[in-house]
């Protein structure tokens, strides 16, 4: 009995180790190699060679990587702000008001959020060129609304539906108009949901690649994912793995920390999006 239990707990520990290695090793390895340059980069025994910081400096020298980070932050923030501003009233209408055609509209919104991005690529290209937005951040903001708006509306609608009706009714009896109800009563209650949804939309915009690759042309206008995908470095004859891993760590660590800190909200947002629908 005792031996069996010990064997069982050994199995549990082994499984836990496997999960840890599988989940963390790629990032850990990137972090280790980001402190290596030259031939030390190619020595699998990472502790045999000294750790240096130069990759983290070099990343910002050969290419406008600082600018790329600013671009990504600006675009993602703008997309989240517009998305929430548009989605909150819409979620109120879809979640609280009995409207004809509501089911159809929700189905269309869900379909839009699941759409293959490449399906709007041609038309979006034409639109962006027509508005003279090619190779600008505005082009990215416009195109990112394609997926952030439906997603934000969908998730906020499911939250909105679950808010207690009594508060709203009390406010109406006190003479509150629908915009007043939304602004003064529901909005404060919705704040955690908005934070969770906004965070997920931010991550989606931060990670977006296809539109950013297709609608920008110069290094200065690239966002982080495109910059990292097209990393060329100072010398052309070798791929600068050290620099690339340093860049990867720079843009990933804040995101990972954010996700770990907001774990609860993210899980709530994802389950609201996927399970409650």
């Amino acid at each position: 009995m005792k031996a069996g239990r010990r064997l069982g707990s050994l199995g549990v520990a082994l499984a836990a180790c496997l999960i840890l290695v599988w989940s963390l090793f790629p990032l850990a390895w990137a972090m280790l190699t980001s402190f290596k340059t030259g031939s030390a980069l190619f020595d699998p025994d990472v502790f045999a060679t000294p750790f240096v910081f130069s990759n983290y400096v070099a990343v910002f020298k050969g290419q406008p990587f600082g600018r790329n980070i600013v671009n990504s932050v600006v675009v993602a923030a703008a997309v989240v702000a517009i998305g929430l501003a548009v989605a909150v009233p819409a979620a109120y209408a879809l979640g609280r008001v009995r409207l004809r055609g509501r089911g159809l509209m929700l189905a269309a919104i869900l379909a839009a959020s699941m759409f293959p991005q490449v399906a709007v690529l041609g038309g979006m290209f034409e639109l962006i060129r027509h508005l003279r937005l090619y190779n600008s951040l505005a082009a990215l903001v416009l195109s990112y609304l394609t997926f952030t708006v439906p997603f934000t509306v969908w998730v906020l609608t499911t939250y909105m539906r679950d808010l207690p009706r009594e508060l709203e009714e009390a406010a109406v009896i006190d003479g509150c108009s629908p915009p007043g109800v939304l602004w003064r009563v529901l909005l404060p209650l919705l704040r955690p949901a908005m934070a969770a949804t906004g965070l997920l939309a931010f991550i989606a915009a931060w990670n977006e690649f296809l539109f950013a690759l297709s609608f920008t042309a110069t290094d200065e206008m690239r966002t982080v994912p495109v910059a990292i995908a097209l990393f060329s470095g100072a010398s052309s004859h070798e791929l600068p793995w050290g620099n690339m891993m340093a860049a990867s760590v720079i843009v990933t660590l804040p995101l990972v920390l954010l996700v770990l800190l907001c774990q609860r909200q993210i899980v709530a947002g994802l389950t609201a999006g996927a399970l409650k629908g």
Partner: protein
Amino acid sequence: MVGGLARSQRRWAVVFLLPMLLALGGAAGWPLLRTAMLSLTDAGLSTEGARFVGLENYLSYGPDPAAYDAGLGGYYVLDVARDADLVWRPGSDSYFNADTGQPAPAPAENTLFAWRGVLTQPAWWRAVGVTLGLAVASVLLETVLGVAMALFLARPMRGRALLRASVLVPWAIPTVVGAQLWNWMLNDQYGVLNAALIGLGLIPRGIAWTAEPGLSLLAILVADVWKTTPFIALLALAALHLVPEAVREAARVDGVGCWGMLRHITLPLIAPAVLVAVMFRAIDALRLFDLVFVMTGNSPNTATMSIYARQQMVDFQRLGFGSAASMVLVAIVALVAAVLLTLGRRRGAVL
């Protein structure tokens, strides 16, 4: 009172919906409509003006558009057997001698007419196969792995919070970054995987994981499963927490063993939620783009439907043709979604 409220609410609802409808219409509806329309034209990416060509970009039988010569008023074709320059005029549906303008016999060997369009392209069907294969394999693997992880993480144990947090990490890493991490680990000369395998004496020299056709698909599959398993694990874990302890307790009292509990109680109870997650992931997998693009570029061995369509549109400047390919992708996604929804409804998935 209540009737008036409902009416005013409804009036306001239209106002509230308007910004969203505008944003969605402008950023999604209109471009989608235009892509559909472009797919019926011969539009180029940087050329002005486009001609309506019907379903030519999808599937059609007809003369080679590249052979059209406005000066001749038809399609030029060289009759190899008779060594004559001919022109085929669509108006009269017959051949003429290009120099004399006299009617001429049809060439012995038809080099002008053929089936055309994306549906006749082996490269497109290869992309369809790659995408479907990757989607099925990836979703199957990540579902099994994800549910297993969730079952494990649901157990009370020391360090569980830490373990749960680390499972989330691959999900938090941008796909492009994740792809580069795998590229680095799988590097043929300096990759840690090859170094480990050589160190263990399993292989004599480094394997080019992302260059060989079969292996590169495997590499993409592993990286995709790595990135997406947390999503399934997370949703399965959330579902597990909704399983009432009383149900499990009752089963335990009735003498149901571990395996029986899993098979007859736990899994059936979380199945609806997991099925929804699987549906989302399956549809997501069909539009796979960034991971493949960063790991193997436009290589035909691993090109997915999205890669193929974008390459036609942007790299080859064939806006109309690429749009047609992307519309076929939409049709395939819609078909798969419809099948999954029907199956899911029958299985009681909550959607």
